[in-house]
Protein backbone atom coordinates (compact mmCIF):
# COMPACT_ATOMS: atom_id res chain seq x y z
CA UNK A 1 0.00 0.00 0.00
CA UNK A 2 1.31 3.45 -0.91
CA UNK A 3 1.28 5.79 2.06
CA UNK A 4 1.85 9.48 2.75
CA UNK A 5 3.44 10.38 6.08
CA UNK A 6 2.41 13.61 7.83
CA UNK A 7 5.74 15.18 8.69
CA UNK A 8 6.49 18.08 11.01
CA UNK A 9 10.22 17.29 11.09
CA UNK A 10 10.19 15.99 14.67
CA UNK A 11 10.96 12.59 16.14
CA UNK A 12 7.38 11.30 16.14
CA UNK A 13 6.80 11.95 12.44
CA UNK A 14 10.06 10.32 11.43
CA UNK A 15 9.78 7.34 13.74
CA UNK A 16 6.24 6.72 12.46
CA UNK A 17 7.69 6.98 8.95
CA UNK A 18 10.28 4.33 9.75
CA UNK A 19 7.56 1.97 11.04
CA UNK A 20 5.52 2.58 7.89
CA UNK A 21 8.56 1.85 5.71
CA UNK A 22 8.97 -1.52 7.46
CA UNK A 23 5.41 -2.56 6.60
CA UNK A 24 4.32 -0.68 3.47
CA UNK A 25 5.59 1.73 0.80
CA UNK A 26 6.06 5.36 1.82
CA UNK A 27 5.34 7.25 -1.40
CA UNK A 28 5.63 10.79 -0.05
CA UNK A 29 5.78 13.05 2.96
CA UNK A 30 3.09 15.66 3.64
CA UNK A 31 4.10 18.81 5.47
CA UNK A 32 1.93 21.69 6.68
CA UNK A 33 3.59 25.02 7.34
CA UNK A 34 1.47 26.97 9.80
CA UNK A 35 1.74 30.71 10.20
CA UNK A 36 0.15 30.35 13.64
CA UNK A 37 2.63 29.47 16.39
CA UNK A 38 -0.26 28.50 18.66
CA UNK A 39 -1.82 25.95 16.30
CA UNK A 40 -2.88 22.76 18.08
CA UNK A 41 -2.50 20.79 14.88
CA UNK A 42 0.74 21.89 13.26
CA UNK A 43 3.48 23.68 15.07
CA UNK A 44 7.17 23.05 15.15
CA UNK A 45 9.86 25.71 15.30
CA UNK A 46 11.85 24.38 12.35
CA UNK A 47 9.28 22.91 9.99
CA UNK A 48 11.04 24.79 7.17
CA UNK A 49 13.75 22.11 7.33
CA UNK A 50 11.41 19.30 6.33
CA UNK A 51 12.38 19.70 2.63
CA UNK A 52 16.00 19.07 3.60
CA UNK A 53 14.98 16.00 5.60
CA UNK A 54 12.92 14.74 2.66
CA UNK A 55 15.96 15.11 0.44
CA UNK A 56 18.10 13.27 2.99
CA UNK A 57 15.59 10.42 3.06
CA UNK A 58 15.01 10.45 -0.69
CA UNK A 59 11.25 10.73 -0.25
CA UNK A 60 9.11 13.20 -2.29
CA UNK A 61 7.43 15.97 -0.31
CA UNK A 62 4.06 17.71 -0.61
CA UNK A 63 3.98 21.04 1.27
CA UNK A 64 0.95 23.24 1.90
CA UNK A 65 0.84 26.50 3.84
CA UNK A 66 -1.92 27.31 6.31
CA UNK A 67 -2.88 30.41 8.26
CA UNK A 68 -3.37 28.07 11.18
CA UNK A 69 -6.89 29.21 12.02
CA UNK A 70 -8.58 26.51 14.11
CA UNK A 71 -10.66 24.09 12.03
CA UNK A 72 -9.99 26.06 8.80
CA UNK A 73 -6.48 24.62 8.91
CA UNK A 74 -8.07 21.21 8.59
CA UNK A 75 -9.25 22.17 5.11
CA UNK A 76 -5.61 22.93 4.27
CA UNK A 77 -4.55 19.54 5.62
CA UNK A 78 -7.27 17.88 3.57
CA UNK A 79 -6.04 19.76 0.50
CA UNK A 80 -2.46 18.59 1.12
CA UNK A 81 -3.56 14.98 1.50
CA UNK A 82 -5.67 15.24 -1.65
CA UNK A 83 -2.64 16.54 -3.58
CA UNK A 84 -0.58 13.62 -2.25
CA UNK A 85 -3.28 11.17 -3.33
CA UNK A 86 -3.43 12.69 -6.80
CA UNK A 87 0.31 13.07 -7.37
CA UNK A 88 1.63 9.96 -5.62
CA UNK A 89 -1.37 7.64 -5.56
CA UNK A 90 -1.36 7.22 -1.80
CA UNK A 91 -4.06 4.99 -0.34
CA UNK A 92 -3.43 5.95 3.26
CA UNK A 93 -1.93 8.46 5.66
CA UNK A 94 0.46 7.87 8.55
CA UNK A 95 0.73 10.18 11.55
CA UNK A 96 3.07 10.33 14.53
CA UNK A 97 0.20 10.94 16.95
CA UNK A 98 1.03 9.55 20.38
CA UNK A 99 -1.96 10.34 22.58
CA UNK A 100 -3.67 13.41 21.13
CA UNK A 101 -7.28 12.52 20.47
CA UNK A 102 -7.69 16.07 19.14
CA UNK A 103 -5.15 15.53 16.36
CA UNK A 104 -5.81 11.86 15.67
CA UNK A 105 -9.59 12.14 15.38
CA UNK A 106 -9.33 15.09 12.99
CA UNK A 107 -6.92 13.25 10.71
CA UNK A 108 -9.12 10.14 10.93
CA UNK A 109 -12.13 12.19 9.77
CA UNK A 110 -10.23 13.72 6.85
CA UNK A 111 -9.01 10.30 5.74
CA UNK A 112 -12.48 8.86 6.09
CA UNK A 113 -13.92 11.67 3.92
CA UNK A 114 -11.23 11.10 1.29
CA UNK A 115 -11.62 7.32 1.33
CA UNK A 116 -8.10 6.77 2.66
CA UNK A 117 -6.63 4.54 5.35
CA UNK A 118 -5.23 6.19 8.47
CA UNK A 119 -2.41 4.71 10.55
CA UNK A 120 -1.03 5.90 13.88
CA UNK A 121 1.76 3.42 14.67
CA UNK A 122 2.85 5.26 17.84
CA UNK A 123 -0.68 5.46 19.29
CA UNK A 124 -0.56 5.00 23.08
CA UNK A 125 2.86 3.41 22.80
CA UNK A 126 4.88 2.94 25.98
CA UNK A 127 6.75 6.28 26.33
CA UNK A 128 9.81 4.81 28.02
CA UNK A 129 10.25 2.01 25.48
CA UNK A 130 9.60 4.42 22.62
CA UNK A 131 12.26 6.92 23.70
CA UNK A 132 14.72 4.06 24.20
CA UNK A 133 13.96 2.73 20.71
CA UNK A 134 14.59 6.11 19.10
CA UNK A 135 18.04 6.31 20.64
CA UNK A 136 18.90 2.63 20.13
CA UNK A 137 17.85 2.59 16.48
CA UNK A 138 20.19 5.39 15.48
CA UNK A 139 18.00 8.47 15.18
CA UNK A 140 19.79 11.77 15.77
CA UNK A 141 17.26 14.11 17.39
CA UNK A 142 17.76 17.59 18.84
CA UNK A 143 15.47 19.78 20.92
CA UNK A 144 14.35 22.86 18.97
CA UNK A 145 11.73 24.24 21.32
CA UNK A 146 10.93 24.19 25.04
CA UNK A 147 7.62 25.37 26.42
CA UNK A 148 7.50 24.27 30.04
CA UNK A 149 9.31 24.36 33.37
CA UNK A 150 11.92 23.19 34.22
CA UNK A 151 13.59 23.34 30.79
CA UNK A 152 16.50 25.77 30.64
CA UNK A 153 17.95 27.47 27.57
CA UNK A 154 20.70 24.83 27.52
CA UNK A 155 18.14 22.35 26.19
CA UNK A 156 17.83 24.21 22.89
CA UNK A 157 19.94 22.32 20.37
CA UNK A 158 20.60 19.48 22.82
CA UNK A 159 20.87 16.00 21.39
CA UNK A 160 18.42 13.48 22.85
CA UNK A 161 20.84 10.83 24.02
CA UNK A 162 20.74 8.55 27.06
CA UNK A 163 21.94 11.31 29.35
CA UNK A 164 19.21 13.66 28.11
CA UNK A 165 16.64 10.88 28.44
CA UNK A 166 17.70 10.29 32.05
CA UNK A 167 17.16 13.98 32.72
CA UNK A 168 13.75 13.92 31.00
CA UNK A 169 12.81 11.02 33.28
CA UNK A 170 13.71 13.15 36.30
CA UNK A 171 11.63 16.03 34.92
CA UNK A 172 8.72 13.64 34.39
CA UNK A 173 8.92 12.78 38.10
CA UNK A 174 9.56 16.25 39.48
CA UNK A 175 7.54 18.44 37.12
CA UNK A 176 5.11 15.95 35.62
CA UNK A 177 6.14 16.58 32.02
CA UNK A 178 5.43 13.81 29.54
CA UNK A 179 8.58 11.90 28.66
CA UNK A 180 7.86 12.17 24.95
CA UNK A 181 6.92 15.87 24.94
CA UNK A 182 3.38 14.84 24.01
CA UNK A 183 2.03 17.59 26.23
CA UNK A 184 3.86 20.19 24.14
CA UNK A 185 6.62 20.57 26.73
CA UNK A 186 9.32 20.33 24.07
CA UNK A 187 9.67 20.00 20.29
CA UNK A 188 12.33 18.18 18.32
CA UNK A 189 14.03 18.03 14.94
CA UNK A 190 15.48 14.90 13.36
CA UNK A 191 18.96 15.40 11.90
CA UNK A 192 19.57 11.80 10.94
CA UNK A 193 17.68 8.50 10.74
CA UNK A 194 18.81 4.98 9.89
CA UNK A 195 17.29 5.27 6.42
CA UNK A 196 18.61 8.79 5.64
CA UNK A 197 21.15 8.76 2.83
CA UNK A 198 22.77 11.90 4.19
CA UNK A 199 22.51 13.69 7.50
CA UNK A 200 21.68 17.29 8.31
CA UNK A 201 24.52 19.47 9.63
CA UNK A 202 23.91 22.76 11.42
CA UNK A 203 26.67 25.23 12.19
CA UNK A 204 26.54 27.00 15.54
CA UNK A 205 26.64 30.37 13.82
CA UNK A 206 23.51 29.40 11.90
CA UNK A 207 21.20 29.28 14.88
CA UNK A 208 19.37 31.91 16.86
CA UNK A 209 18.05 31.23 20.32
CA UNK A 210 15.08 32.95 21.91
CA UNK A 211 14.44 32.00 25.54
CA UNK A 212 12.64 33.43 28.57
CA UNK A 213 10.60 31.95 31.44
CA UNK A 214 11.05 28.31 30.45
CA UNK A 215 9.94 29.00 26.88
CA UNK A 216 12.27 29.19 23.95
CA UNK A 217 13.02 28.12 20.41
CA UNK A 218 16.10 27.34 18.41
CA UNK A 219 15.75 29.01 15.03
CA UNK A 220 17.95 27.36 12.48
CA UNK A 221 18.71 29.84 9.75
CA UNK A 222 20.81 27.55 7.58
CA UNK A 223 21.51 23.84 7.40
CA UNK A 224 23.02 21.51 4.85
CA UNK A 225 23.24 17.85 3.98
CA UNK A 226 26.54 16.11 4.53
CA UNK A 227 27.78 12.57 3.96
CA UNK A 228 27.11 10.06 6.76
Amino acid at each position, binding site marked *: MKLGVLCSGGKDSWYACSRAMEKEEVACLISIRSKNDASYMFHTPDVHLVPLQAEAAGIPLVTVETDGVEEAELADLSRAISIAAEEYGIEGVVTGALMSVYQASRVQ*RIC*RDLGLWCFNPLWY*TDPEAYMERIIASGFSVIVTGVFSAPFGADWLGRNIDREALAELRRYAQSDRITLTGEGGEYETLVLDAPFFRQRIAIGEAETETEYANYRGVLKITRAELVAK
Partner: protein
Amino acid sequence: MILLVDLAEKPGSLSRDEYVGPVARIIAAIGYEWREVHFSEITAAGITDADGIVLCGTALKDNAFAERVQDLVWLRDARVPVLGICAGMQALCLVFGGSIRPAVGIGMTEVRVVQPDPVLGEPHTFTAYELHTFACEPPAGWVTTAVSDRCVQAIRHPDRPVFGVMFHPEVRNDAVVERFCAICGPAYLQ
Protein backbone atom coordinates in the same frame (compact mmCIF):
# COMPACT_ATOMS: atom_id res chain seq x y z
CA MET B 1 -2.37 -15.54 30.15
CA ILE B 2 -4.60 -13.18 28.18
CA LEU B 3 -4.75 -13.88 24.45
CA LEU B 4 -4.97 -10.79 22.24
CA VAL B 5 -6.54 -11.48 18.86
CA ASP B 6 -5.51 -9.14 16.04
CA LEU B 7 -8.50 -8.66 13.72
CA ALA B 8 -6.60 -6.62 11.10
CA GLU B 9 -6.90 -7.76 7.48
CA LYS B 10 -3.43 -9.35 7.53
CA PRO B 11 -0.95 -10.56 10.17
CA GLY B 12 1.79 -8.16 11.24
CA SER B 13 0.08 -5.14 9.70
CA LEU B 14 0.91 -1.49 10.33
CA SER B 15 -2.30 -1.38 12.41
CA ARG B 16 -0.97 -3.85 14.96
CA ASP B 17 0.84 -1.23 17.04
CA GLU B 18 -2.26 0.97 17.10
CA TYR B 19 -4.89 -1.54 18.15
CA VAL B 20 -3.13 -4.49 19.79
CA GLY B 21 -0.09 -2.75 21.34
CA PRO B 22 -1.99 -0.34 23.62
CA VAL B 23 -4.17 -3.15 25.05
CA ALA B 24 -1.08 -5.27 25.65
CA ARG B 25 0.50 -2.36 27.48
CA ILE B 26 -2.42 -2.08 29.92
CA ILE B 27 -2.43 -5.82 30.57
CA ALA B 28 1.33 -5.92 31.13
CA ALA B 29 1.16 -2.91 33.46
CA ILE B 30 -1.14 -4.78 35.87
CA GLY B 31 1.11 -7.82 35.84
CA TYR B 32 -0.75 -10.22 33.57
CA GLU B 33 0.95 -12.25 30.89
CA TRP B 34 -0.34 -11.82 27.36
CA ARG B 35 0.20 -13.30 23.93
CA GLU B 36 -1.07 -12.18 20.55
CA VAL B 37 -2.27 -14.02 17.48
CA HIS B 38 -3.84 -12.96 14.21
CA PHE B 39 -7.39 -14.24 13.75
CA SER B 40 -6.44 -16.12 10.60
CA GLU B 41 -3.84 -18.12 12.54
CA ILE B 42 -5.83 -19.06 15.61
CA THR B 43 -6.38 -22.72 16.46
CA ALA B 44 -8.36 -24.49 19.17
CA ALA B 45 -5.07 -25.79 20.57
CA GLY B 46 -3.69 -22.28 20.67
CA ILE B 47 -6.36 -21.01 23.01
CA THR B 48 -6.48 -23.81 25.57
CA ASP B 49 -4.01 -22.10 27.90
CA ALA B 50 -5.67 -18.67 27.67
CA ASP B 51 -7.40 -17.36 30.81
CA GLY B 52 -9.16 -14.72 28.75
CA ILE B 53 -9.41 -13.46 25.19
CA VAL B 54 -9.47 -9.89 23.90
CA LEU B 55 -10.57 -9.25 20.32
CA CYS B 56 -8.81 -6.00 19.35
CA GLY B 57 -10.00 -3.20 17.09
CA THR B 58 -9.05 -2.45 13.50
CA ALA B 59 -8.49 0.62 11.31
CA LEU B 60 -11.63 2.45 10.12
CA LYS B 61 -11.28 1.06 6.61
CA ASP B 62 -10.44 -2.44 7.75
CA ASN B 63 -13.59 -4.55 7.89
CA ALA B 64 -12.13 -7.75 6.44
CA PHE B 65 -13.01 -9.61 9.65
CA ALA B 66 -16.72 -9.06 8.92
CA GLU B 67 -16.37 -10.98 5.66
CA ARG B 68 -14.46 -13.82 7.32
CA VAL B 69 -16.72 -14.61 10.25
CA GLN B 70 -16.17 -18.33 9.62
CA ASP B 71 -12.64 -17.82 10.98
CA LEU B 72 -14.16 -16.71 14.28
CA VAL B 73 -16.87 -19.30 14.96
CA TRP B 74 -14.61 -20.88 17.61
CA LEU B 75 -15.78 -17.99 19.80
CA ARG B 76 -19.12 -19.76 20.28
CA ASP B 77 -17.33 -22.49 22.23
CA ALA B 78 -14.81 -20.34 24.09
CA ARG B 79 -14.95 -21.28 27.77
CA VAL B 80 -13.01 -18.30 29.06
CA PRO B 81 -14.02 -14.63 29.37
CA VAL B 82 -13.97 -12.72 26.08
CA LEU B 83 -13.82 -8.96 25.55
CA GLY B 84 -14.45 -7.63 22.04
CA ILE B 85 -13.28 -4.08 21.39
CA CYS B 86 -14.92 -2.15 18.52
CA ALA B 87 -14.28 -4.50 15.59
CA GLY B 88 -14.15 -7.20 18.28
CA MET B 89 -17.65 -6.32 19.46
CA GLN B 90 -18.83 -6.34 15.84
CA ALA B 91 -17.24 -9.78 15.38
CA LEU B 92 -19.04 -11.08 18.49
CA CYS B 93 -22.33 -9.77 17.13
CA LEU B 94 -21.85 -11.49 13.80
CA VAL B 95 -20.69 -14.78 15.31
CA PHE B 96 -23.61 -14.95 17.75
CA GLY B 97 -26.33 -14.02 15.26
CA GLY B 98 -26.55 -10.24 15.55
CA SER B 99 -25.77 -7.81 12.77
CA ILE B 100 -23.91 -4.60 11.96
CA ARG B 101 -25.08 -1.48 10.12
CA PRO B 102 -23.19 1.55 8.76
CA ALA B 103 -22.74 4.17 11.51
CA VAL B 104 -19.58 6.24 11.65
CA GLY B 105 -18.27 7.45 15.00
CA ILE B 106 -14.92 9.23 15.37
CA GLY B 107 -13.69 11.00 18.52
CA MET B 108 -14.78 11.40 22.12
CA THR B 109 -18.35 10.53 22.97
CA GLU B 110 -20.51 10.30 26.09
CA VAL B 111 -21.22 6.73 27.12
CA ARG B 112 -24.06 5.92 29.51
CA VAL B 113 -23.85 2.64 31.42
CA VAL B 114 -27.46 1.47 31.68
CA GLN B 115 -27.00 -1.92 33.34
CA PRO B 116 -24.58 -2.93 36.11
CA ASP B 117 -21.78 -4.82 34.44
CA PRO B 118 -18.58 -6.57 35.58
CA VAL B 119 -16.36 -4.59 33.18
CA LEU B 120 -18.20 -1.25 33.20
CA GLY B 121 -19.32 -1.04 36.83
CA GLU B 122 -22.52 0.49 38.12
CA PRO B 123 -24.69 2.78 35.91
CA HIS B 124 -22.88 6.07 35.32
CA THR B 125 -21.77 8.29 32.46
CA PHE B 126 -18.23 8.70 31.16
CA THR B 127 -16.45 9.95 28.03
CA ALA B 128 -14.76 7.48 25.72
CA TYR B 129 -12.96 7.37 22.38
CA GLU B 130 -14.83 5.78 19.50
CA LEU B 131 -13.55 4.97 16.03
CA HIS B 132 -15.94 2.87 14.00
CA THR B 133 -17.59 2.60 10.60
CA PHE B 134 -20.36 0.24 11.74
CA ALA B 135 -22.60 -0.09 14.76
CA CYS B 136 -24.03 -3.29 16.25
CA GLU B 137 -27.51 -4.72 16.44
CA PRO B 138 -26.89 -7.11 19.38
CA PRO B 139 -27.70 -10.82 19.10
CA ALA B 140 -31.06 -11.90 20.50
CA GLY B 141 -31.00 -12.23 24.27
CA TRP B 142 -27.81 -10.27 24.80
CA VAL B 143 -27.85 -7.46 27.36
CA THR B 144 -27.19 -3.90 26.22
CA THR B 145 -25.08 -2.50 29.04
CA ALA B 146 -24.12 0.94 27.67
CA VAL B 147 -25.31 3.32 24.97
CA SER B 148 -24.43 6.68 23.42
CA ASP B 149 -26.60 9.00 21.35
CA ARG B 150 -25.28 7.31 18.23
CA CYS B 151 -25.27 3.61 18.98
CA VAL B 152 -25.06 0.68 21.39
CA GLN B 153 -21.73 1.07 23.18
CA ALA B 154 -21.51 -2.15 25.20
CA ILE B 155 -23.15 -5.58 25.31
CA ARG B 156 -22.93 -8.78 27.33
CA HIS B 157 -23.79 -12.40 26.64
CA PRO B 158 -26.85 -13.43 28.71
CA ASP B 159 -25.16 -16.40 30.41
CA ARG B 160 -21.40 -16.26 29.86
CA PRO B 161 -18.63 -13.74 30.55
CA VAL B 162 -18.51 -12.51 26.97
CA PHE B 163 -18.47 -8.72 26.61
CA GLY B 164 -18.35 -6.23 23.76
CA VAL B 165 -17.51 -2.53 23.87
CA MET B 166 -17.79 -0.26 20.84
CA PHE B 167 -15.53 2.44 22.31
CA HIS B 168 -11.77 1.94 22.66
CA PRO B 169 -11.04 1.44 26.37
CA GLU B 170 -7.29 1.52 25.69
CA VAL B 171 -7.72 5.26 25.19
CA ARG B 172 -8.40 6.92 28.56
CA ASN B 173 -10.46 4.05 29.97
CA ASP B 174 -7.82 1.51 31.01
CA ALA B 175 -10.03 0.44 33.92
CA VAL B 176 -12.34 -1.45 31.56
CA VAL B 177 -9.47 -3.69 30.43
CA GLU B 178 -8.22 -4.00 34.00
CA ARG B 179 -11.64 -5.13 35.28
CA PHE B 180 -11.87 -7.62 32.45
CA CYS B 181 -8.47 -9.10 33.36
CA ALA B 182 -9.57 -9.34 36.99
CA ILE B 183 -12.42 -11.68 36.07
CA CYS B 184 -10.31 -13.93 33.84
CA GLY B 185 -9.30 -17.32 35.15
CA PRO B 186 -10.81 -20.37 36.85
CA ALA B 187 -12.03 -18.58 39.97
CA TYR B 188 -14.56 -16.54 38.05
CA LEU B 189 -15.71 -19.37 35.81
CA GLN B 190 -16.50 -21.64 38.77
